[in-house]
């Protein structure tokens, strides 16, 4: 049904594009905002693949239900369970749709979609397009969006930055955004706003993320009243190439395709990798986790690598690095399956990983936390949670849609601000305390397609047209004066290390990486809190080096640094609050999971009066699967 009510989608990664396509198809005009041409969104970086139950795995005993179970277990029982169930049930349909859109998925010799193994599963259930799956999925959705753009149903605002939501009585009525070329600030009305703005790797300075992944947009929604869930749940990926400007990812697919992680058994063994005989290599993941081996989930692999290098000093040449070895595989096979990432390694390190093992180390990668969202439960509601699914056994329920979440319920993926939605990595849902590889692309597209339908129902009942213009003008003025305050600092002279935005960001990244990643502890977190407070204080006196009124990147960057500091504050406070270890969050002073107290979401709220962040706990939906210890069969 066509409507003149417009929806704003902020972000043109997989989540935003899927939402735009779904809404435009339903006849709703969409205004799409993106910092970059949407084809260059960060989703383009995703390498390994996208998970879904499939016919081959099904005949081997796998099911949508097992995918659901793996995801909840992988997330260490922190995710709301009903949404995960719905996502897993939808996954095969999403793959089929992408297939129809022309995504060049790798094929078997008979022409069916090929599959690979990925972390946290014993079944091949990951669909892929070489080693640039995200790029291929993004392009397919970009093309569909371009089709609607051509038909006038989607209007793109590329190189426009979302600055602030316009909220009236806890209901969103539009946004204020800035053209990054002309620097014009203006407001836009909408019946609903979808934040599909991705993750926040840049809070850590260097990460595997694109340099636009500051999390600033999410931070602004947070500062304007949206809650932020599980901020402390930051995924550190085990295998990345250390670099000066970025930590480039070597996808989990390298291990899924047979890559082995090892270090020399002898500490400080200076021989070249190829000269170290098999018996003198320590394949520590395979030895410690016989069932899953190299494809244990990320948080586990990361902690083991960290322990081997940092605690035991057994890294290659005594450095913080371990081998990721593919050299036992046929080079042509590797090119076909992993060409994209092997090229990256070769390009940036200058070594061909087909013939020499790669040297890798963990890096900040993904934010499970994000804007807090709610949902309406679907039709599957057992009397009580049932025990964990036994891998390969028959599923207790079928995969009909609507069992996990109620399709079209207006509140699916809606934040606590009415009409303000969070999709994709910006949404805190699905992944709990740790995301399984190849589940992010799925959650992004699922949000866009499934929760996009919820936006469609919501706008039928929401009428925001009466919101007074003065409200919009006030937010425009707020943002203009913020910008003017930044650029007016230029006349005060040269930035010093004390007030240089680049320096503040750098110190933030170093501190967050040291205190808030693989291992955390109360004293170290307290120290980080002091540092973040200091940086927030210094930022109040920040000084810019460019007052241009045309294409002022320094202004946009500095503004984002301020918003990253607020997110960092929430991450540190969430980490302090959670006095247990769960998934990616590991506290040396509380090494065990504590379900009685902490099988709950941490929810951060922002107090505009004193710009402070507070964190509380909120119950989660754990009504489907009973929690069990998450050991992945580790040998004692």
């Amino acid at each position, binding site marked *: 049904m066509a409507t003149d009510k417009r929806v704003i989608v902020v972000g043109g990664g997989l989540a935003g594009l899927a939402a735009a*396509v779904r809404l435009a*198809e339903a006849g709703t005009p969409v205004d799409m905002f993106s910092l*970059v*041409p949407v*084809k*260059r*969104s960060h989703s*383009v*970086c995703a390498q390994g693949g996208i998970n879904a139950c499939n016919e081959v795995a099904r005949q081997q005993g796998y099911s949508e239900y097992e995918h659901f179970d793996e995801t909840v277990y992988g997330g260490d029982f922190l995710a709301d369970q009903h949404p995960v169930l719905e996502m897993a049930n939808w996954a095969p*349909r999403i793959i*089929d*749709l992408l*297939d*129809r*859109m*022309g995504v*060049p998925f*790798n*094929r*078997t010799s008979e*022409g*069916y*979609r090929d599959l690979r193994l990925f972390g946290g599963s014993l079944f091949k259930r990951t669909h892929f*397009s*070489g080693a640039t799956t995200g*790029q*291929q999925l993004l*392009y*397919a959705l970009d*093309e*569909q969006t*371009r*089709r609607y*753009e*051509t*038909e*006038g149903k989607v209007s793109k605002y590329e190189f426009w930055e979302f600055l602030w939501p316009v909220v009236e009585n806890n209901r969103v009525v539009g946004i204020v955004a800035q053209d990054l*070329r002309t620097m014009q600030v203006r407001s836009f009305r909408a019946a609903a706003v979808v934040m599909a703005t991705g993750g926040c790797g840049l809070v850590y300075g260097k990460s595997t993320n*694109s*340099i*636009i992944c500051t999390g600033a947009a999410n931070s602004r929604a947070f500062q304007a009243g949206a809650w932020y869930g599980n901020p402390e749940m930051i995924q550190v990926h085990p295998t990345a190439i250390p*670099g*000066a*400007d*970025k930590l*480039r990812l070597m996808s989990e697919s390298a291990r899924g395709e047979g890559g082995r992680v090892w270090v020399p058994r002898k500490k400080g063994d200076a021989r070249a990798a190829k000269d170290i005989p098999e018996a003198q290599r320590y394949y520590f993941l395979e030895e410690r986790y016989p069932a899953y081996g190299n494809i244990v989930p990320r948080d586990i692999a990361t902690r083991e690598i960290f322990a081997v290098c940092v605690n035991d000093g057994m890294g290659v040449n005594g450095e913080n690095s371990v081998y990721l070895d593919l050299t036992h595989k046929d080079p042509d096979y590797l090119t*076909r399956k992993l060409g994209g990432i092997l090229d*990256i390694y070769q*390009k*940036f390190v200058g070594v061909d990983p087909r013939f020499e093992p790669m040297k890798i180390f963990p890096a900040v990668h993904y934010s499970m936390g994000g804007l807090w969202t709610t949902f309406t439960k679907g039709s599957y509601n057992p009397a009580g949670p049932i025990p964990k699914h036994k891998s390969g056994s028959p599923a207790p329920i079928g995969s009909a849609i609507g069992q996990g979440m109620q399709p079209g319920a207006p509140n699916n993926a809606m934040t606590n601000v009415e009409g303000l939605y969070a999709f994709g990595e910006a949404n805190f849902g699905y992944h709990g305390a740790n995301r399984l590889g190849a589940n992010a692309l799925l959650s992004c597209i699922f949000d866009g*397609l499934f929760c996009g339908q919820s936006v469609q129902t919501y706008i039928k009942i929401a009428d925001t047209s009466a919101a007074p213009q003065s409200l919009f003008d006030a937010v425009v003025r707020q943002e203009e004066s913020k910008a003017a305050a930044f650029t007016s600092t230029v006349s005060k002279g*040269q930035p010093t290390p004390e007030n*240089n935005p*680049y*320096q503040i960001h750098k110190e933030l990244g170093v501190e967050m990486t040291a205190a808030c990643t693989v291992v955390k502890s109360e004293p170290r977190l307290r120290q980080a809190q002091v540092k973040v407070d200091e940086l927030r204080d210094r930022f109040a006196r920040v000084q810019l*080096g460019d007052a*241009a009124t045309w*294409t002022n*990147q*320094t202004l946009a960057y500095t503004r984002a640094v301020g918003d990253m500091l607020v997110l960092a504050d929430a991450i540190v406070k969430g980490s302090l609050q959670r006095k247990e270890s769960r998934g990616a969050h590991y506290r040396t002073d509380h090494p065990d999971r504590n379900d009685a107290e902490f099988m709950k979401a941490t929810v951060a709220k922002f107090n505009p009066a004193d710009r402070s962040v507070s964190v509380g706990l909120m119950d989660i939906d754990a009504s489907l699967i009973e929690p069990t210890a998450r050991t992945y069969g580790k040998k004692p």
Partner: protein
Amino acid sequence: MATHLNATPPPDAAPPSRGPATPGRTVNFKVRRCDGPGKPGRWETFAVTVERGSNVISCLQQIAANPVTVEGTRTTPVVWDSGCLEEVCGACTMVINGKVRQSCSCLIDNYAPGEGDTITLEPMQKFPVVRDLWVDRSRMFSALRRLKTWVPIDGTYSQGAGPKETPDDQEIRYKLSECMTCGCCVDACPQFLLEPDPARWETSFVGAHAVSLARLFNEHPTGRTLAPHRLEVLSGHGGINDCGNAQNCVKVCPKHIPLTESIGQIGRAVTVHQIKKIFFARPDPHAAAKGPG
């Protein structure tokens, strides 16, 4: 079947190295600057201390943090475009030492291995400059709208899987589908000229990237239904006849996309399309629905 995919040698990444690079050395960046459309250009040179593995972007970041020229003059930070920093998003294209390429994958150790070496950075030539090294490439996306480079699916409701495909065909489509709209091919093309006026894009050369994507979608069983439209556009002004076969495009494509092969194939398809038009006159049902340009 897959052998032709890498028929073109990779573009030579760098001038021959002059021996091992010294970490901690100083490299000069001579940057072409311009404050905005219609503003005069100027050169500024910055000295940057480089570490092992530095690339052009990491050096530009250092300059941004402390924009002081070699003469000691404080200036504004250089403006540039970037995203992924791993040569997959296409944002960071610029002209480096006279050659168009991605700046994120441009390693300083290869380009300037010696103390005091200079690297020259200029914006792409065929697009209007927004500021400094940032150019406006919207014309490339407009060409994609013109050519309807998508698969016209019925909608997003479940309809089962897409068409089966052989691994060989997948490999060809995958290669073509890696185009990141970076603009190297058109910047190097003698037939693709700077055209700041969007009103003229409809009749200006679409460029090798767009021809190749037309081929990609003409190869797909559902995408093929729009082939007559694409071939019609490509037989008109700014279409395949504008290509002079200089083959510069294929030499600079960072994704090694077989562009000349695509051009040849589309050229033949356009000829067949025109012959068909003469013998079986049939209006193009999609010709009316033009993009906003």
